[in-house]
């Protein structure tokens, strides 16, 4: 699919600053971070959650546990896809019962990924609370899902795509808005 870059939404430095702010917000609003744990949604949510855990450790000396969630089995569009997506492991090394969980993902769009992530978490137990942290909220929700912690809200059209590129995965660090060339 040919795409054209329209504009940069966040630079490398802005991503870093945004994550620092989000890390502070999560701690401030988690009452001492008791039972707090982050859940990174594959794939980029994992990298972002890792960075948030690191940032939290640096400024508060708190070690917040982190888990990794693969939502493939919980998608609601499987019967419309020719080939089912390859599965990756879910790695949550702690009991989620009574935990104060924050799901971390890169872009909040229709809300369907987050619905799938919550279903996946409920299969593991009964968290006390689940909140959501995203780097970009681009609107166009199809489900009643909202984020508690938002890096940046962006107005987009339905044809546009928000691409979060992270050093660990993409070899560069920035967020761009691209559009399809028709």
């Amino acid at each position: 699919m040919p795409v054209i870059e329209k504009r940069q939404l966040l630079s490398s430095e802005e991503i870093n600053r945004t994550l620092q702010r989000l890390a502070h917000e999560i701690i401030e609003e988690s009452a001492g971070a008791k039972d707090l744990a982050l859940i990174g949604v594959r794939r980029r949510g994992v990298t972002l959650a890792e960075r948030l855990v690191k940032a939290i450790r640096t400024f508060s000396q708190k070690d917040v546990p982190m888990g990794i969630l693969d939502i493939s089995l919980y998608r609601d569009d499987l019967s419309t896809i020719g080939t089912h997506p390859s599965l990756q492991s879910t790695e949550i090394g702690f009991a989620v019962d009574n935990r104060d969980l924050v799901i971390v993902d890169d872009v909040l769009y229709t809300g369907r990924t987050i619905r799938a992530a919550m279903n996946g978490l409920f299969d593991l137990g009964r968290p006390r609370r689940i909140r959501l942290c995203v780097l970009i909220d681009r609107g166009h929700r199809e489900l009643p899902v909202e984020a508690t912690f938002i890096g940046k809200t962006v107005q987009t059209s339905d044809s546009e795509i928000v691409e979060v590129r992270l050093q660990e995965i993409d070899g560069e660090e920035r967020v761009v808005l691209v559009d399809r060339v028709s």
Partner: protein
Amino acid sequence: MQQLSHLLGIEDLTTEQISFILDQAKPFQEFQRHPLKKLATLRGKTVAVAFFEPSTRTRISFTTAASRLGADTMALQAESSSLKKGESLIDTVRTIEAMRPDGIVIRHSSSGAPEFVAQRLEIPVLNAGDGTHEHPTQALLDALTIRDRKGKLEGWNVTILGDVLHSRVARSNIHLLTKFGAHITLCGPAMWVPRELETLAPNLRRTSCLESALEGADVVMVLRVQTERIHEPALAADEYVLGYQLTAQRLRLARPDALVLHPGPMIRGLEIDPAVADGPQSCVLEQVTNGLAVRMALLYHLIGGAPLDAPHPAKDRGNASD
């Protein structure tokens, strides 16, 4: 990688396809430890489980795998089916197909039956054992067990012990393991390890001496003595025990970290000594759990996707996975 549309046997799979299936079983191994073992992934899909030959464990494993993925199952068992009344295989499966299942799992006493069915039905066919031909899910779960316990699948010395001639488990395992460079030794009474087996794969060694077969083995696969498939006069049970039972003492000839696998059902005191079956080298129960994981992975990938040429709604929109 060539996308699978059926699972008929191991022989025609590539190492890449096999590794993919084993990798895809990993999340389902973890899933078996979940408190809530029920997914909605294949909700609304139906898997026909047609067993034209008695089976307990494989049937329960496939049925449980389908059910944990959220699919419903339609069961057909030889004892209760119209096969007894003389209906042909193809009429039976066409009848099942008319009830619109999304896939069919078949066990049949005739080698090649699943392939015969696959050529005539539009839905994915999974071979749960056909005659003396193949039992692909067993070989896959054995491979997963070996890979997990030993850290890799490639290059082990594998001894397959017992009635190799009549064993589809052995055949599927020979195909799978030789693709990954295993050195395989077939061992049993001479009539059960005939020369013809050498045509199955390169570098097969045959012997009727258990002691020499065990020496240096990294993996010992014990086969069940299959009384139902044997037409020629069988070796007397006590002679078999004497010559071929895997005892703790004999197992010491293998490498100290050798694994013992058995596809079940196990006849303790015949082909295997209870001390070995319950010992630290035995993988028997892991094999059962891994069987569920492998079958869930196969059902997930084979059942329930839209036809490959159907439009992909998610591809028409940005941030599809968000």
